[in-house]
């Protein structure tokens, strides 16, 4: 239950940060900003899905985490870290060829890592961990 609440608090902080960012932009939104906002919405959506899943488990009287969910999280973390190394390598490769601001590159990397993590988690959560 506590972990579900922490997820909701973190999600609220991300949403508050996004609102502040939108307010600071105040009408000067570029197409790239909409792209970042869409990715941010995706990450928030994933966090909410994850939080509600845990909350429902807690209300059912089931443990919020068990051996399968812990194993999925471990496997997801290791694979997404491995893929993220290649993501940063690709970002470094393209940053030499195209002109991006430093904070844009870092933002792309962090959001990319979040997407990689979400995709890995979804894959393992639906395909399972056979013969592990």
């Amino acid at each position, binding site marked *: 239950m506590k972990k579900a609440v922490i997820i909701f608090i973190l999600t609220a902080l991300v949403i508050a940060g996004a609102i502040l960012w939108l307010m600071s932009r105040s009408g000067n939104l570029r197409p790239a900003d909409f792209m970042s906002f869409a990715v941010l919405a995706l990450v928030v959506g994933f966090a909410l899905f994850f939080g509600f899943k845990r909350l429902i488990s807690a209300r059912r009287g089931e443990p919020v985490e*068990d051996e399968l*969910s812990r194993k999925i999280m471990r496997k997801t973390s290791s694979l997404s870290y491995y893929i993220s190394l290649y993501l940063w390598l690709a970002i470094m490769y393209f940053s030499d060829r195209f002109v991006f601001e430093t904070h844009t590159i870092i933002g792309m990397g962090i959001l990319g890592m979040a997407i990689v993590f979400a995709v890995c988690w979804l894959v393992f959560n639906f395909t399972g961990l056979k013969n592990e």
Partner: protein
Amino acid sequence: MNNRIKEYRARFNFTQEDLAKKVNVRRETIVFLEKNKYNPSLKLAYDIAKVFDCSIEDIFYF
């Protein structure tokens, strides 16, 4: 590894949720086990066998 959890569950008239609560895991874990998408730890296999009052080999087989 294959298992006969579904068969035993039907015999004991347990729902997936009932079994999940008895062995202290989430219902999804029982779903994955029945679909052979997850091999349980020795502890979970032992707990499941204990619930059905049989040996681990009766439920899990290769």
